[in-house]
C-alpha cells in the first residue's frame, strides 16, 4: 500500500496498463512531453516512447477518429480529452462511431477505447473548464460511463476500463485530483476487487440513501457525518445516511441502490450536472418503479441548475454542497416542507 493523490494513482494506473499490454496507446493534447495539463501522464512518454504516448494535433474529432482507426487495427487507445468542455468537437466520433461500430459490424470490430475526461467544477476555472457532460454519454447505447472518487478506485477502475473490450468514458473528478489516499497497486489482480460496473456503499446507514458519484462523494461523506452528529434536539435529531458511490453511470448498478432504499425508505441523489435529463432523473424514475412500496417520501434530487456552468464567483452556489444535500435529506425525513407542497390539482 502506498499513499498517493488521485492524479498520481491515475498516472500509476496508466503506467501499469502500458506495461501490461503493448497494444495500449496513450493519445491526447499535451500529454507527452508536458505530461498533460494536470500531469496525469507525467513521465510516461519518457518511459514508453513517443509511439506509445502520442502528442496529438489540436482536433478532438481527429483524435477520436484516429483512435477508431487504431482500434480497427487492434490497438487499445486511451484518449485524454483535455477538459470536459472540449469533448463536444469529438461528440460525433464518440456517439456515431465509437459507440456503434461493434453493433454496426455485428460484433466483428471491437472498439476498446478509453476516453479520459477531467470533469466537474470547483477549481475556479474559466468557461468550458468545469462541465459535467456525463449524461450525454450515458444516454448513448454502446458506451460505458464510469467515474472514480478515490485514489484506489482511480487506480483499479482505469485499468479495468482499459482492459474492457467496450468503449469507456472515464470521468475524472478534477477538483479531487489532489485528494490523497491509500492505494493497493495490486488490487486489480485480486479476485475480490469490485467490478467497474458496480456501485459501492461508502458509508452504511439506515434512514436515508444518498446516492452520488465522482467529486460529490467526499461532500456526501461529510454530509453523512454532519447528519449523524446533529444533536440540536437530542439524539432523535441525528439522521443515519447511507452513502452510495455509483461509480458506474452506464450501466447503473440499480440493484445496489434498490437494496439500500428497501432498507432506508428514502432516496436523495446528488450530482453536479444540470438537473434536466440527468443521471438523477433516470435513477429516481427507476427507483420509484422498483421501490414504490418501500418509499416513505418522494426521491429528491440535489443537482446543478439548468443553466450553463456559471462564472467562478457563482460556482459555490451552483454546486451542490453539504447544506443543500442536508436540506434534501430533511425533506425526505418530513422535517422540512416538500418543494411542491400544496394542493395537487
Amino acid at each position: 500500500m502506498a499513499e498517493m493523490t488521485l492524479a498520481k494513482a491515475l498516472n500509476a494506473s496508466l503506467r501499469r496498463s502500458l506495461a501490461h499490454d503493448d497494444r495500449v496507446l496513450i493519445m491526447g493534447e499535451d500529454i507527452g512531453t508536458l505530461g498533460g495539463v494536470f500531469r496525469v501522464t507525467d513521465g510516461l512518454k519518457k518511459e514508453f516512447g513517443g509511439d506509445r504516448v502520442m502528442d496529438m494535433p489540436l482536433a478532438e474529432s481527429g483524435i477520436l477518429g484516429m483512435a477508431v482507426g487504431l482500434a480497427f487495427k487492434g490497438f487499445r487507445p486511451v484518449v485524454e480529452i483535455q477538459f470536459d468542455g472540449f469533448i463536444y468537437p469529438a461528440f460525433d466520433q464518440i456517439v456515431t462511431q465509437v459507440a456503434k461500430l461493434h453493433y454496426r459490424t455485428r460484433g466483428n470490430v471491437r472498439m476498446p477505447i478509453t476516453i479520459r475526461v477531467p470533469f466537474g467544477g470547483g477549481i475556479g476555472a474559466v468557461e468550458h473548464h468545469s462541465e459535467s457532460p456525463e449524461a450525454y454519454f450515458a444516454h448513448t447505447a454502446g458506451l460505458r460511463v464510469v467515474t472514480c472518487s478515490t485514489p484506489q478506485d482511480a487506480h483499479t477502475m482505469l485499468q479495468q476500463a482499459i482492459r474492457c473490450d467496450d468503449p469507456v468514458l472515464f470521468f475524472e473528478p478534477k477538483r479531487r485530483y489532489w485528494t490523497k489516499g491509500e492505494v493497493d497497486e495490486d488490487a486489480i489482480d485480486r479476485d475480490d476487487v469490485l467490478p467497474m460496473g458496480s456501485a459501492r456503499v461508502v458509508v452504511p446507514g439506515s434512514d436515508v440513501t444518498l446516492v452520488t458519484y465522482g467529486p460529490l462523494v467526499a461532500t456526501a461523506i461529510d454530509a453523512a457525518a454532519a447528519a449523524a452528529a446533529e444533536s440540536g434536539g437530542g439524539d432523535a435529531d441525528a439522521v443515519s445516511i447511507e452513502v452510495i458511490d455509483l461509480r458506474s453511470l452506464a450501466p447503473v448498478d440499480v440493484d445496489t441502490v434498490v437494496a439500500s432504499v428497501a432498507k432506508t425508505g428514502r432516496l436523495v441523489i446528488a450530482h453536479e450536472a444540470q438537473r434536466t435529463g440527468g443521471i438523477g432523473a433516470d435513477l429516481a424514475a427507476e427507483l420509484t418503479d422498483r421501490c414504490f412500496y418501500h418509499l416513505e417520501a418522494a426521491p429528491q434530487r440535489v443537482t446543478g441548475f439548468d443553466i450553463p456552468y456559471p462564472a467562478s464567483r457563482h460556482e459555490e452556489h451552483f454546486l451542490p454542497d453539504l447544506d443543500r444535500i442536508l436540506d434534501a435529506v430533511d425533506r425526505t425525513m418530513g422535517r422540512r416542507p416538500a418543494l411542491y407542497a400544496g394542493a395537487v390539482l
Partner: protein
Amino acid sequence: MPSSLSESRESRPRASAPHDRPVQLLDPSGRRVPHAPYDDYVADVSGDQLASLYEDLVIVRRLDVEATALQRQGELGLWPPLLGQEAAQVGSARVLRPDDFVFSSYRENAVAYCRGVKLTEMLNVWRGTALSGWNPYEVGMATPAIVIGTQALHAMGYAVGAKLDGEDSVAVAYFGDGATTQGDVNEAMVFAASFRAPVIFFCQNNQWAISEPVTLQAQRPIADRAPGFGIPSVRVDGNDVLAVMAVTRRAVEQAREGGGPTFIEAITYRMGPHTTSDDPSRYVDPLEREEWAGRDPLARVEAHLREAGVLDDALAASIARRADEAAAEFRAGCTEQTDPPPLAMFDHVYAEPHRGIDEQRRQFGEYLESFEEEN
C-alpha cells in the same frame, strides 16, 4: 456586386477549373494517350488484363442496375447508384493487396465487389436485415460510413497503426466531393501529414452532393487543398480505368515505401440520382448530363479493346453472360434473405455482458412470449 448570396452561387462555373489537366491514358474515344510518368505504372497491363478490368466494369454496372430494379420492386428500401463511377472505383480498388484496408462511403459497391464482398452481404443494409453485411477483417474493408467524411479519419488512424506495426500495408479512404467540406476530412489530412501515415485519400468528385454542385463546396480544384496540408495530390480522369489504376499504383507504392499520404481527385460524374429516393431532374441540366454520357467509362475501354483486337463479339457476349449470372445471384441473395428474430436486435451492443441490455432483452422476451401463451 451580386444582389444575393444565392445569385453569387448560381453565377459560378459548374465544372471543375480546367487549368490543371487531369491524368488521362484512355480518351473518351478509346485512344491511348501518353502521359508520363504514369505510362510506366501501367506498362505491364496486357490486353487480357484490360479486358478483365472491362469485365469488372460491366459486372458492377449490371449489379447496380439490378439493385435499382430491386428497389423499384420493393425488395430494397433504398439504393445509392454508382452509375458513371465504375472506373474510379474499379481502377483504384484493383490496385490494392488483400492486407490493405479500405474505409469507404456508401456508394463504393464496386470497391466492395473488388474486395471480394459476397453479393448477398452487399445488400442486407439496403434491405434492412442488418446494419452491415460483411466482416471487415475477411475482406479488408470497413463497413461503409453513412456520415460523410468520418471514414477519412478512420483510414488515417488505421494507417498509423499499420506503420506502428511495421507493416507495408496501406489504408484507403474513399469519399466524395461533398465530404471534403467536413472537418473530419481536413483533420484527417493534418494528422496524416503529421504522422506520415500510409493512407490514400481517394476523392470521387462526382460533381454533386445530393443536389448541391461541387462549386458550393469548392472554389478551386479539390486536389489543390492537399498540398496546403503537406500532402501531394493528383487529379485524374475518373472515367478512365487505366489512368485511375496508374495514379493509385503510384500513390500506393509511395505509401508502402514510407512516403506518406497522397490525395487523389478522380473527376467523374454521378449519372443517376444520389439514391433511389432522389429526383435529379430538379437540379441537373440535361445537357450537362449528356456531355458526361459521352465520357462513359465502359464505352472507351470497349472501343479500345475492339480496336486492339482483344474484344470481339464472342468475348463481349460471354462477359455479358457472366454479368447476368452475377445479377441473378445478386437478386436471389436479396429476396432469399429472411428477417432476423426480434431479440437479435439486442445482440452486439456491447462486447462484454451489460446488465442494462440483459434486463431489457429479458423483459422484452417475456413480453413476446406472453403473446405465444395467449395463442
